[in-house]
């Protein structure tokens, strides 16, 4: 057993130079076969492995990661966690996840620093406010917390927002979800990895899948840069690169890969308490524990796998944020990063079976994958363990696009670049 993490153990380390800590996860050689192979050592893949082992008792599991774990979108996002969606399929799914978030640190014995500091959508006119009320009412009727705020109430939480009436986009109110917040993104990947590893899951880094082993219409394993590995069931879990990996199995998906950029400023003393998002403007900001203002905006809405964004897209998001919070003006952008996102054709994820036996798909997270990590892992583990979707991910099937049962939160239709 690994040394459990605790304050006591840390103190003990103060006297031994912290020499008693083992590696957080092993570095095993791949075996010839597993019950389940998960392609992709990101947050979702590691969470899936953890819940397979913990909930379903399936421990003969490998997570194959082409590079280093947590290096994909779980390590390059803006760390927001919330369940404040309008459509029931989405808010029910994310709410299930939010409940898992609230105890995740204890469950994993790894502090993922989930901090329910509240996430608010600003409304800038009466029309926005009605839409926010509609969203909040839909959530509340389904038992999810949501509260409308007046500008005065907003001022108490975020005094640096421009709440003047003559602002270009005056702030008329907000819908806040108090139980939403932020978490430490890397810790989520590492915490799941450490916990899954402790349950016997093999986490195999620097192992890139280059093809599938196929018998008729069944996938029975994968070809990798470290050799052939067979599996009873194989789950793709590589959001951002789903089109590419599914393509190796001959699947074409309702997905286009786009770049989503984010940035953080130099650290300053606390100035933003919650997560602030805007309904009409497209930015979101929060402040990290180190003091940096973390923000993002719209994706670069054309296809790319490059993890390299365009400056003017970022500048536009910054203009929107500075307009709403003028005190950001003299802060400095310190670091930028980009993720490759799976833009699905209704904006909702895909978790479920595929037309190919033995092959499962977890994809299409658009820019909302981080917050979904526990729920995605939980439901995908259920699907991989039982061969059938969990009731929460049943609506998110791959077939829905052809049948028309799309889950279109933003209601702009099939073109991700119009979203």
């Amino acid at each position: 057993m690994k040394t459990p993490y605790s304050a006591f153990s840390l103190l003990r380390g103060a006297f031994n130079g912290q020499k008693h800590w083992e590696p957080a996860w092993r570095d095993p050689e791949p075996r010839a076969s597993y019950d389940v192979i998960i392609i992709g050592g990101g947050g979702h893949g590691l969470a899936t492995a953890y819940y397979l082992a913990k909930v379903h008792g399936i421990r003969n599991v490998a997570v194959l990661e082409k590079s280093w774990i947590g290096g994909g979108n779980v390590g390059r996002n803006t760390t927001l966690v919330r369940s404040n969606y309008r459509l029931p399929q989405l808010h029910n799914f994310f709410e299930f996840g939010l409940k898992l978030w609230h105890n995740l640190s204890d469950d994993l014995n790894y502090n993922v620093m989930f901090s329910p500091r509240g996430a608010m959508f600003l409304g800038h006119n009466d029309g926005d406010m009605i839409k926010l009320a509609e969203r909040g009412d839909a959530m509340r009727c389904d038992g999810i917390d949501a509260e409308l705020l007046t500008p005065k109430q907003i001022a108490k939480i975020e005094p640096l927002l421009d709440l003047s009436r003559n602002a270009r986009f005056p702030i008329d109110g907000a819908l806040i979800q108090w139980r939403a917040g932020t978490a430490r993104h890397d810790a989520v990947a590492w915490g799941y990895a450490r916990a899954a590893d402790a349950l016997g899951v093999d986490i195999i880094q620097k192992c890139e899948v280059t093809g599938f082993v196929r018998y008729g219409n069944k996938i029975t394993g994968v070809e990798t840069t470290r050799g052939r590995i067979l599996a009873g069931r194989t789950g793709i879990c590589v959001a951002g690169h789903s089109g590419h990996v599914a393509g190796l199995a001959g699947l074409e998906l309702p997905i286009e890969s786009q770049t989503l950029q984010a940035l953080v400023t130099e650290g300053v003393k606390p100035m933003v308490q919650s997560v602030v998002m805007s309904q009409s403007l497209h930015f979101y900001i929060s402040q990290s524990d180190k003091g940096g203002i973390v923000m993002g905006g719209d994706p670069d809405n054309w296809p790319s796998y490059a993890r390299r964004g365009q400056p003017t897209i970022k500048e536009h998001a910054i203009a929107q944020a500075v307009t709403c919070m003028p005190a950001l003006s003299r802060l400095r952008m310190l670091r930028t990063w980009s993720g490759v996102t799976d833009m699905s054709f209704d904006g909702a994820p895909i978790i479920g079976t595929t037309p190919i036996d033995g092959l499962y798909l977890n994809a299409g997270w658009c820019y909302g994958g981080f917050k979904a990590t526990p729920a995605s892992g939980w439901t995908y583990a259920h699907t991989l363990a039982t061969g059938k979707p969990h009731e929460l991910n049943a609506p998110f099937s791959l077939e829905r696009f052809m049948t028309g049962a799309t889950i279109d939160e933003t209601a702009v239709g099939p073109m991700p670049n119009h979203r």
Partner: protein
Amino acid sequence: MYQITCPHCGPRAQTEFTYERTTDSVVDPAADAHTAMQALYTRANPMGLDEEIWRHTYGCRAWMVLTRHRVTHVIEAVKAIGPEALA
């Protein structure tokens, strides 16, 4: 920010352009329903070259097809596709 060589205006900043979709997702209005939905809801989405429809929206407003690499962002070819291309 890319530099896109518009077939009509020459090299221009990407800001003037909008991306529409890939050529493999063009829905022929005359196609049967199944073919049309297949076109609309699947993309090759390769980690390499693909053909994309762009428009010089804030320039000459014309439409064109870019052959562009999804990783290097190199634009290998641009060709006009509007009525002017039929002339």
